[in-house]
């Protein structure tokens, strides 16, 4: 429980003793490592994809991990973010905003959708909230699929702008090593989100989230406006998911088929949070890296190594959910609190 051994020494010594600083260093410096690897071991170009989905994990972390609201419709907010970004920026429609305004629209859309869904549903208890959010997820996918005048349905809205940082980032697929810039940009987005969340969690707001999760009745009796706190957490989570959606669409260059944002994606997000450690911000990121890495990198590489095959058993994507499920079962059996269990200490008080 007591981490006082971590607190000794200068700030630099403390940083060096914390495994998280090394993890961050490796991820930031990954382009250098990646370029040193043989060509078929290189994974850099796949990393921004994982980082975009890390936002899903962050969103679910706030709603489910910290506030304890089981949210089964997070993918819907990813979809809302992706489509809001696509609609406001695509050349198929007259708005044609740039990357940054488009991102703003996506976040605003996610926030409003979060408030709209949260107002009635965050008053529901446990399982009912899960069912309501699950239903919402299905409704959104169906709407996006069928409102094809606006969303182009499964044809997807294409031709989205690349991020603009004084210069426009080159296409990640067609330009060699363009991924490095995408990687750093998306890392910066994650860093900002993590910084904000870290501050929130160590403030009265984060404490209110945890208190509501721990004991809602006591929290209310201690003066916490529970409905407001839940709605706030839910909205923030939705905004984070929508940000991830916008970044994903931008990376892909199109809005992607609405059916890609189905229930499985929500489950994936929840698994990230569970695997990493419910309630732990570091855990959510670790979970996102592990599961995202598995989905995006391992499957991609293994499939390539195994080569094209007709055999059902040798096609890895058929094994994906099996391995995935096994991973969660083992996790629950041997380390139920997650890879990085939550530890709460008030900042600046030691």
């Amino acid at each position, binding site marked *: *429980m007591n981490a006082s051994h971590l607190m000794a020494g200068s700030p630099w010594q403390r940083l060096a003793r914390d495994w998280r600083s090394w993890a961050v260093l490796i991820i930031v410096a990954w382009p250098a490592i990646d370029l040193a690897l043989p060509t078929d071991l290189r994974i850099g170009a796949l990393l921004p994809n994982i980082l975009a989905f890390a936002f899903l994990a962050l969103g679910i972390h706030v709603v489910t991990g910290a506030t304890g609201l089981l949210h089964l419709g997070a993918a819907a907010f990813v979809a809302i973010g992706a489509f809001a970004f696509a609609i406001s920026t695509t050349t198929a429609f*007259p708005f044609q905003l740039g990357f940054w305004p488009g991102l703003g629209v996506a976040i605003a859309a996610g926030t409003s959708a979060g408030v709209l869904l949260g107002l009635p549903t965050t008053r529901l208890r446990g399982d009912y909230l899960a069912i309501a959010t699950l239903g919402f997820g299905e409704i959104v996918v169906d709407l996006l699929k069928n*409102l094809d005048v*606006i969303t182009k349905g499964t044809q997807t809205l294409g031709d989205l702008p690349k991020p603009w940082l004084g210069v426009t980032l080159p296409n990640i697929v067609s330009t060699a090593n363009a991924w490095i810039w995408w990687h750093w940009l998306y890392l910066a987005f994650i860093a900002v989100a993590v910084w904000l969340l870290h501050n929130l969690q160590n403030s009265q707001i984060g404490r209110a989230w*945890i*208190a509501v999760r721990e004991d809602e009745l006591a929290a209310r009796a201690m*003066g916490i406006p529970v409905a407001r706190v839940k709605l706030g957490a839910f909205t923030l989570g939705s905004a984070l998911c929508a940000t991830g959606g916008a970044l994903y669409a931008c990376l892909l260059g199109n809005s992607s088929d609405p059916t890609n944002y189905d229930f499985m994606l929500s489950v994936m997000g929840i698994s990230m949070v569970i695997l990493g450690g419910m309630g732990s911000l570091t855990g959510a990121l670790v979970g996102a890296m592990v599961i995202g890495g598995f989905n995006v990198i391992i499957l991609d590489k293994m499939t390539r190594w195994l080569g094209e095959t007709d055999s059902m058993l040798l096609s890895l994507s058929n094994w994906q959910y099996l391995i995935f499920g096994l991973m969660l079962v083992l996790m629950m059996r041997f380390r139920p609190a997650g890879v990085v269990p*939550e530890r709460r200490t008030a900042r*600046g008080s030691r």
Partner: protein
Amino acid sequence: MTALLEVSELTLCFGGLTAVDAVSFTVEKGSITAVIGPNGAGKTSLFNVITAQYQASAGRILVEGATIERQWGRAETLRAGGFTLLAGLLTALALHCQSLWSAFLHDWNSLTKFAWGTGLTLAWEEFLRTGTWPFAIGAAVAAAACWQHWHSQRRTPDLVHRHGIARTFQNIRLFRRMSCLENILIPRDTRAGYGRLAAALRLPWQRQREAAEISAAMALLELVGLTAAAHLPAGSLPYGAQRHLEIARALSSKPRLLLLDEPAAGMNESESADLMRLIRGIRATGTTILLIEHDMQVVMGISDSIVVLDHGEKIAAGTPAEIRAHPAVIAAYLGETVEGQP
């Protein structure tokens, strides 16, 4: 002088069961009042009504002469009005979004420049043509929801707490996985408000407030002798310490009235003595105390007045000496008198 708490004709029914039956009593400012009675007498129910966990079926609860209820004000009007309008608008937009969208885009294609004026005018006309009924229906539903919500939120536990009535629970309800310090901070936080921007960006005043709150909370932990445990999870403390922490948590928002629900339950004699000293100390700082207790030594030792409940009814009230000699109390505690039975 008006009493700090005045309960009059308070009744709480669960279906056919009357848990609290027309109970009236007052708690004077600066006093320690005990509520006693056999198990199931309605003591905790009474606490739950006072703190708005349950809504009273009848009767009034006045705190320094005033009821604690939300008042409808400007902010409520604005919020409800805005919500109603927005809901109507969204319903109208959602029901006809495809035709509105087509009207808005009119004959635009990616080669021509988009005429915003024409698009907006056409969309507006389409909205007027199709949107009236959906708007009315959406707004009506939203207004009804607002109305219902308002009535369910007139009197809530968090509001009562913010009006200076804090409580502990019979079965300890700490935030077990949070540290002791954080447990103490929670009620204080509610006064600071939940300014998201300041908290997210960790602005200077947020940092100052946080530091001030933490030092105040540490002082309170010292009062109950838990300084060393400040950073341990509350759930890891021994039982007696958890009781003390719960009292400290209730105290941390500086309440006018502190409700203690069986604070001495499960404590041995020396722990009870410590607790009595703590409760007297709290009273000395000007906090009025209302407590439920079974331990008669504690009750008789510290209370200024005692209210006795049985089967939801008040059967006696008075000073400890009066209560000790009261026939109805003796009957309730020792069982019904055998008079009239064969």
